[in-house]
């Protein structure tokens, strides 16, 4: 049974574990006016921003900051905090780096496209500016381009930078950009420890959706205007400890989702089975764990998707507490969503505010996951 030894958070609720958790307890919203770009005419004027985050001052390697996307920076902050909270010696695992794994869920950064656009703009045909001349890419375009930019968009970069900061050399897994992926990463890290593949595991969920291009993609997906774009990272340090919150049960599945329609991208539609697949998944997970008194659900305001979630959670005799959701307070956190909920739940368990918690999350394309965390008596 894997225990959560330390939690790091960089969320719209606050920078750092203490601030995030206190804000959650106080009922504070993490949404505020979006100052990243002019929002006039945009579906929402607010966003979930991590305030007070100055990467050059708050990350261990200042030189590496320029090589990181925003989500990598947030991920490293959370990872370092989680290791400090776990009281690992020297904040790393250098005594046995290959016995520590890293499991991540990360979005994909597209801001480097802006760098590319500069290069492309410089490669325009002087006689016909509407054309890009490939032959100019390596002459005029070259100086306008950072060769490391393409690497920023790789989804495994948050994992890499966090692994480098903590000197992690054991098993690794970087999963795609779904909100459910963080819970899968948490489950797989727990399995990896149980199988003896590693003794400690860093679990990461990070994303940075407060970026104009990505926000436009959320419009296309139907997330905006229901939820504001958001950013954040959560990190959990797993290991063995009889006195810390632990991962009691978890599972994942794929639910059938609506196919193509003229105004919707593939898979971004309603659940076709009314929530039956979710219901079966939650029943399995709860059946392995016992009663829960806290439930961070996947309800986020989409009528068609929430219908399936409500059905799946209804008449579950193991759920004794109130259904809650953090989405309206933190916005659309993307790949950081599921793990941020799990991180908050873990800290509430540690503070004695809950005994056992269910966390659910789903991706827009029908991947679903559920985790039950428990505080040992």
């Amino acid at each position, binding site marked *: 049974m894997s225990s959560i030894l330390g939690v790091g958070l960089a969320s719209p609720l606050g920078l750092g574990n203490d601030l995030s958790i206190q804000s959650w307890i106080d009922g504070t919203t993490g949404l505020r006016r979006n100052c990243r770009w002019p929002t006039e005419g945009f579906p929402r004027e607010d966003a979930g921003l991590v305030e007070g985050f100055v990467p050059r001052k708050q990350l261990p390697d200042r030189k590496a900051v320029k090589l990181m996307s925003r989500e990598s920076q947030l991920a490293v902050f959370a990872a370092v905090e989680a290791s400090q909270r776990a009281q690992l010696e020297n904040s790393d695992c250098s005594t046995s780096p290959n016995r520590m794994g890293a499991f991540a869920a990360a979005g*994909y950064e597209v801001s480097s496209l802006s760098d*590319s656009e500069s290069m492309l703009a410089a490669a325009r045909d002087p006689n016909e500016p509407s054309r890009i001349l490939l032959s100019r890419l390596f002459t005029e375009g070259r100086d306008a381009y950072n060769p*490391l930019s393409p690497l920023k968009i*790789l989804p495994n970069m948050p994992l890499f930078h966090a692994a480098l900061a903590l000197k992690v050399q054991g098993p690794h897994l970087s999963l795609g950009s779904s909100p459910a992926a963080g819970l899968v990463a948490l489950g797989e890290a727990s399995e990896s420890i149980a199988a003896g593949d590693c003794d400690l595991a860093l679990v990461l969920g990070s994303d940075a959706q407060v970026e104009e291009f990505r926000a*436009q993609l959320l419009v296309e*997906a139907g997330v905006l205007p229901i939820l504001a774009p958001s950013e954040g990272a959560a990190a959990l340090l797993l290991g063995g400890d009889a006195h810390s919150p632990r991962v009691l049960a978890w599972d994942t599945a794929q639910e059938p989702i609506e196919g193509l329609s003229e105004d919707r991208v593939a898979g971004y539609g309603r659940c076709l089975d009314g929530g039956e697949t979710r219901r079966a998944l939650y029943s399995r997970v709860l059946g392995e764990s016992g009663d829960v008194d806290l439930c961070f659900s996947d309800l986020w305001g989409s009528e068609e998707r929430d219908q399936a979630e409500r059905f799946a959670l209804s008449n579950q005799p193991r759920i004794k507490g109130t259904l809650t959701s953090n989405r309206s307070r933190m916005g659309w956190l993307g790949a950081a969503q599921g793990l941020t909920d799990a991180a908050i739940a873990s800290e509430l368990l540690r503070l004695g505010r809950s005994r056992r918690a269910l966390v659910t999350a789903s991706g827009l394309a029908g991947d679903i996951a559920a985790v039950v965390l428990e505080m040992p008596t």
Partner: protein
Amino acid sequence: MTERRVVITGVGAVSPLGEDAASTFEGLCLGQSGVRTIDRFDASGFSTRFAGQIENIPLLPGAWSETASRYEAADQMDRKTRLLLSAASEAWTQAGGDDRGARSLGRPERIGICLGSEVGRKLLEEVAQRSVRFAGIPTLQPVVPHLPIGEMARMRPSHPGHVLTSILGTRGPNRTVSTACTSSAGAIAEALYLVRRGTLDIAVCGGTDALVEAFMLSGFSLLGALSSRNEDPQGASRPFDRERDGFVLSEGAGVLMLEAEEHALARGAPILGYLLGAGLSNNAYRITDSPPDGTGPMISMNAALDDAGLKPEAVDYVNAHGTSTQMNDLSETRGLRRTFGAHAERLRVSSTKSMTGHLVAACGAVEAIASLLSLRSGRVHGTLNLKHPDPECDLNYLPDGCEDVAGGIGVAVSNSFGFGGCNASIVLGAP
């Protein structure tokens, strides 16, 4: 929990060497190169003007084609997804699956998908359009109406997997592993764990990538990672050769059907071989380089052998990551020596990339399939273009081409290493 043995019941591949797994392997054994001068777009201004290219993507069978056409009509079928569907349909059919989808092989909730895939690459033309039309506009807002509706779908690393599940109707876990060049090997490892511990009876796993596109070619060129041997494209990928000058960008897809042995036996499925173990590690070193001492690769190979319950001496063949970059080939060689000790001298080692180029997120799957077909046939392909051995790369890389191994081979290791310090090794066994 009792761990189950995991077998391979189907494979499919599309590569610059062939439209299916058999023709790809045949091309490898014949020592053919799939690398040639780029003709898909005007690459004359690039420092690298060649790549591994797939000319014809095979047609899809009935129901697959019907669904794929709908995605194509909606502008949501990118090249990497299309490549994946071809490889997956081949593997699915070989495993005994049919147009009924998941139900033709078992319970849909016991069949899942694990694929290695990266962020969809934007077409240069799309970026260029935006760059030119909206230069100087402080917000991207006016751009929105001009973005194709499928933009988000095609950007998602998970898109190929979700198209596949919509065709097959699988209800088990659907995962996308995005760890650069180790993506598909990592996905195979994930699938192994899911089947072995009883979460799934069948996992459709592998990976896909399609990087032969101006935007990515420019990025990798500026990074200095690509060979620029424009005068001799087929001689450009030369792993372990002292004159190597970088890797060759390529494209393709590979899919393996993993299945619990008892499930496969119960339904009379063909057992092509065994997936015995997998090991993963991280270098925690640099973004683009492996450590010169080979520590990261050594950790992943040791972990894979431990997972398979095998000693190094049990391994007959290593399908190397072998990219043809200075640092990878040196680091891998040292990692092999540290893992296998004296046995390294007896190993056969070869690089598929010397002939296919680098399939990036798909390379681990296609190379695992090549390793499996070597186990089945006793034929091990060589390393093309290895004419001037690097004295620091001093193992038996089969420079003379394909070898028919007397008595066959029993165990193979396939390595994949990637940007971001990811390493993945998988161990395959003969049927």
